[in-house]
């Protein structure tokens, strides 16, 4: 025998174009909802990943004007402040510290870099500890330098590309008139390291007369340790300042959370618009079937049966639209990602739009609930139709 579900399906197929258009309206809203929620998820995860990939959670620098420190990092300016290398050993003694890596940043002016010259920057590192912290760094060619004071260099992907360097080639430090042999070229990492020229720490210290001095110490905190505590302890060291990347992440995320709220509002608006479309379609359908619904009541349908029938039609439309929308968001997630990247001024690496099973189920559930709510009024109206009104609307007494 016929079930109400079958009757509902057949009713929807009666006006195929209208049902299709309504379904597409829901599908597009669902696509927007899933993509935006997926973006929310993906962006946060990508940011987390980027922060984690910094390798160290904290950096220790010599106390000084932070804006100078900023300039140093951006362009390599003058007036750098230095940390004594012994501080690194003091930091390593702290129980919360898992590992440290000492760094020295130095710059020279290269008059033959561009029309008016430019700055060339070099980062002196200890390859064992630096490589251990930044595990994501992979080599395109070669590897890290051997001895701690070798006349060697490792180049980040973009630095190598600009200079057209491969492993075995030479580079030249102007002002110091020093040749270094490139022993490694890194793969693209999507971080600052891509533009960096790495030199053995001792080599750089010796070349620039900065023996025993550092500009930065990268610190990896033990997983179970409280970063706040170690920060406080580090501040007890003389003439240092601590930059915590967790703080940086919080700052960025608070910027992003405003965007998130906006994103959710847009998604909700999209859903509301779709809902209105659904209510309109079903109401129109009920109006057109006014007589028919009345007749259904004469053949035995209770008001509750009619309510169920109409409600089922709404739910079917919304569920089908939701599934199509989900499909669209999966297939077009790369397109959505491209759209987002073209609009965001800074975006983390990796997938920005992350659509997983939980999100899909949640979205489908939300759309179904919306379908159920949208169908309430039309179903109630249909349930109240009196058979006599339906019959009388055509036949005279």
């Amino acid at each position: 025998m016929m079930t109400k579900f079958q009757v509902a399906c057949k009713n929807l197929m009666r006006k195929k174009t209208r049902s299709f258009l309504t379904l597409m309206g829901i599908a597009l809203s669902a696509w927007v909802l899933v993509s935006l929620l997926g973006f929310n998820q993906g962006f946060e995860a990508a940011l987390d990943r980027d922060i984690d990939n910094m390798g160290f959670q904290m950096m220790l620098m010599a106390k000084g004007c932070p804006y100078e420190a900023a300039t140093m990092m951006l362009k390599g300016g003058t007036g750098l402040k230095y940390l004594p290398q012994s501080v690194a050993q003091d930091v390593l003694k702290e129980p919360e510290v898992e590992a440290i890596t000492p760094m020295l940043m130095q710059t020279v002016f290269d008059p033959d870099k561009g029309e008016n010259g430019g700055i060339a920057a070099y980062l002196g590192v200890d390859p064992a500890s630096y490589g251990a912290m930044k595990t994501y760094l992979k080599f395109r060619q070669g590897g890290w330098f051997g001895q701690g004071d070798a006349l060697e260099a490792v180049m980040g992907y973009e630095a190598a590309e600009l200079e057209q360097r491969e492993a075995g080639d030479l580079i030249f430090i102007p002002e110091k008139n020093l040749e270094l042999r490139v022993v490694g070229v890194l793969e693209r990492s999507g971080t600052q390291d891509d533009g960096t020229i790495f030199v053995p720490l001792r080599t750089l210290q010796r070349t620039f007369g900065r023996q025993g001095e550092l500009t930065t110490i990268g610190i990896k905190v033990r997983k179970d340790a409280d970063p706040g505590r170690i920060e406080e302890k580090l501040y007890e060291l003389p003439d240092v300042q601590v930059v915590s990347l967790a703080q940086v992440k919080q700052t960025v995320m608070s910027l992003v959370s405003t965007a998130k709220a906006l994103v959710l509002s847009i998604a909700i608006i999209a859903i509301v618009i779709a809902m209105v479309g659904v209510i309109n379609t079903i109401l129109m359908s009920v109006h057109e079937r006014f007589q028919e619904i009345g007749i259904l009541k004469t053949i035995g349908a209770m008001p509750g049966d009619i309510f169920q029938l109409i409600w089922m039609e709404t739910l079917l439309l919304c569920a089908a639209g939701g599934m199509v929308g989900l499909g669209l968001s999966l297939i077009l997630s790369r397109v959505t990602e491209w759209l987002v990247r073209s609009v965001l001024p800074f975006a983390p690496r990796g997938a920005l739009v992350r659509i997983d099973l939980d999100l899909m189920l949640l979205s489908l559930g939300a759309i179904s609930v919306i379908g159920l709510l949208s169908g309430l009024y039309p179903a109630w109206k249909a349930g109240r139709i009196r058979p006599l009104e339906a019959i009388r609307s055509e036949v005279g007494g």
Partner: protein
Amino acid sequence: MTLKRFFLAAAAIFVFLGLASSPAPAAVGCDLNDPDRDVPRLFPGATRYETLTLEIQKLGGDRLLGRIESRLRDKLRGLYETIDVPYTLYVIYRGEEKIGYIHGVTQKGRYGGIQIFLALDLDESIRTFYIQKISGPHAGRFRKPGFAEGFVSLSLADFERYEVATGQATGRVARIENPAPLAEQDFRFTLRGTKKNLILVNEFLKMSAQLAPKKGNASQ
């Protein structure tokens, strides 16, 4: 300076530097650092320019690559001389009249990339020779005006007979003096880069009718 201000500064730094996504992972090309400043300097009389981005891969693929290599009598090799390198060709105008081109290539040098720009008249002869970047202890000598003057009015016809592999030069190319005898390698690299530049422009211009140029800024 308060802690908070420092965090904000660090946040700004990391946001712009550390967390910025990499540019699109394609090969890097060779552009003028400041075209609005450099175009009128390299091409006196220019009032505006248009920019075309061209790739061997897209224009003619392996066939075009083969033709270029056979004209250069050398292979385009290594990690960086690849078929998908984007070349920027600046088309130079005085008013509505096209007056020439500027084109740059990066040539691998002894200590780093050598960025060689040629400003060319419509007949593809060199009007101005310009090294935007070069590395090494003798780098400065290659950027002196005297060296650049040696290239003025030379064309592909002159470079056609220059042997990149052996450095053997004839005619007007042979008259170009090495400004840094201790940097013989970079001198030869510069000549190779110039020849490559001229061949590329010649090949690109054969196909330029198919391409719609992007508008540049009006200089001056």
